[in-house]
């Protein structure tokens, strides 16, 4: 009898030992790789324990094309086509920041009508980018209507941009000195009617998408980034505004004509994924108001461009300029040494800065919450790799 009890105790001790040794074996390593319907051109390695994520390691660089090195072999104007390729559907914003930095270095100002046209193109591009971002959010959540409606509505704005610049995406419209050409003759009326119709369509999104109980359940309370953490991690753009910090570069450090425009900075205090999905939508409605004011105030005629030599020499010095793009603060640091080619060009993009929040938010959450958290950080992989 005692031997039987002893044997049972011994067996129990052994089995406890086996469970303890294989603690590490319980973790499973997954590679959410570049071929995945839920990740885009980006890979991250995660280790999961049952259903909870324990360790995240991002691995960007699949689209690293070396823009900063290529800038050193081309003069200031030849840099525009390849610098707008990181985000091809938001290209007027990337080249806006670059042109501002070059103009600051050389010391010229753009004529007033050119500044207004630049601002109109920048706001239209913001609308196009945010619509595509919402469409892909729909794919990640498995909501195919949320892909079709924004993807169809953005074609209205792409029509306008095609009229203005000549191409659907990658416009190459902003150059150092102004814009490339003037608006066509009835662009103002056409733009006003399209933007008004677009705003009516936007109002319907609230009923269908944001009041949808499934979307709310999947995104509310998920991936909470508190205000102190957001400031400490240095995130930017709509992620920062969804955590309660009303910081928008168009209000804080107005560039060009933004100090004459009256608009509100949209921010929310609940810091979860639903707020990060809702703030860009509110930004889009603000953009429509801004476009209407800009079309009102634009001067009737004038130059749109300050002509420069195509191989203009930059004086020795540095400049640092930033603007607010669809993803956040986009800044350029340009060092010049007196020749017609830049010595060093450094782009600091919003996606790369927001990437730091990804391991912070994913650790401890469930595997099914990964798509809403990952895409709500407003991360565009091609831009983060440059």
């Amino acid at each position, binding site marked *: 009898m005692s031997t039987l009890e002893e044997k049972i105790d011994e067996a129990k001790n052994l089995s406890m030992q086996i469970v303890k040794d294989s603690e590490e074996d319980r973790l499973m390593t997954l590679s959410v790789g*570049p*071929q995945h319907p839920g990740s885009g051109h980006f890979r991250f390695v995660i280790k999961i324990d049952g259903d909870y994520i324990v360790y995240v390691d991002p691995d960007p660089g*699949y*689209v690293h*094309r*070396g823009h900063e090195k290529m800038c050193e072999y081309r003069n200031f104007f030849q840099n525009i086509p390849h610098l707008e390729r990181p985000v*091809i559907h938001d290209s007027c914003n990337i080249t806006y920041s670059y042109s501002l930095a070059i103009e600051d270095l050389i010391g010229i100002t753009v004529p007033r009508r050119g500044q207004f046209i630049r601002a109109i193109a920048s706001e239209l591009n913001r609308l196009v980018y945010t619509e595509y971002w919402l*469409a892909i959010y729909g794919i990640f959540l498995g909501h195919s209507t949320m892909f079709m409606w924004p993807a169809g509505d953005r*074609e209205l704005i792409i029509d306008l941009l095609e009229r203005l610049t000549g191409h659907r*995406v990658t416009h190459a419209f902003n150059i150092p000195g102004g814009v490339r050409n003037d608006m066509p003759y009835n662009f103002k009326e056409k733009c006003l009617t399209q933007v008004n119709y677009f705003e009516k369509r936007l109002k319907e999104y609230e009923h269908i998408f944001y009041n949808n109980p499934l979307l709310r359940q999947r995104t509310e309370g998920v991936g909470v980034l508190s205000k102190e953490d957001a400031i400490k991690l240095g995130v930017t753009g709509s992620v920062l505004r969804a955590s309660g910090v009303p910081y928008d570069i168009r209000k804080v450090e107005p560039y060009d004509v933004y100090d004459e425009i009256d608009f509100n900075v949209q921010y929310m205090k609940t810091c979860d994924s639903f707020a990060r999905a809702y703030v860009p939508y509110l930004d889009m409605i603000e953009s429509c108001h801004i476009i209407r004011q800009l079309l009102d105030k634009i001067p009737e005629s004038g130059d749109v461009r300050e002509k420069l030599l195509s191989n203009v020499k930059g004086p020795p010095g540095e400049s640092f300029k930033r603007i607010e793009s669809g993803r956040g603060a986009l800044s350029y640091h340009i060092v010049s040494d007196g020749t017609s080619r830049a010595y060093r060009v450094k782009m600091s993009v919003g996606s790369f800065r927001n990437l730091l929040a990804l391991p912070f938010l994913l650790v401890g959450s469930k595997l099914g919450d990964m798509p809403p958290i990952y895409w709500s950080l407003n991360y565009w992989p091609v831009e983060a790799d440059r």
Partner: protein
Amino acid sequence: MLKELLNPNPANFNILVSKLSDVLVTSLEEPLGYAINWARVWSLWPVHLETACCSVEFGAASSPRYDVERFGILEAFGSLRQCDLIVVQGTVTRKMAPRLRMVYDQMPEPKYVIAMGACAITGGLYLDSYNVLPGCDGIVPVDVYVPGCPPRPETLIQGTFLLQEKIKRSKIK
């Protein structure tokens, strides 16, 4: 001759069977081949692999305006074992190249490749960058080249029509 063939003689029986099978194969090859090609042409499913920036125009091609689903091109969000088309969208970098080859090897036969954009054909704007391959020809065998930077969605649809012509003319093994 018929009387000879119908004689139950082993040598003649073999000749009868081989002549019958020839007749069967030549009569059925054409309509069966036509049917199989018709089925393949109108249901090309692409793999969800986005290589670089042309993926925005591919996404716009699936939008309601340039609806590419009416030609059977449905992005099957399942595994890549069910797909038969791979669209190389844009620049292929040195880091992405082995993964592209791995994905191509895992797809079942028959499979087709469309090279979309100037960067996938010859390297495009990024020819002198340190991390970019000059074209994806060296990695996967390409069937159709679609030029443009980025190509408009209508150009992509014309590229798929060319691919469909190519498939219709191919023989069934």
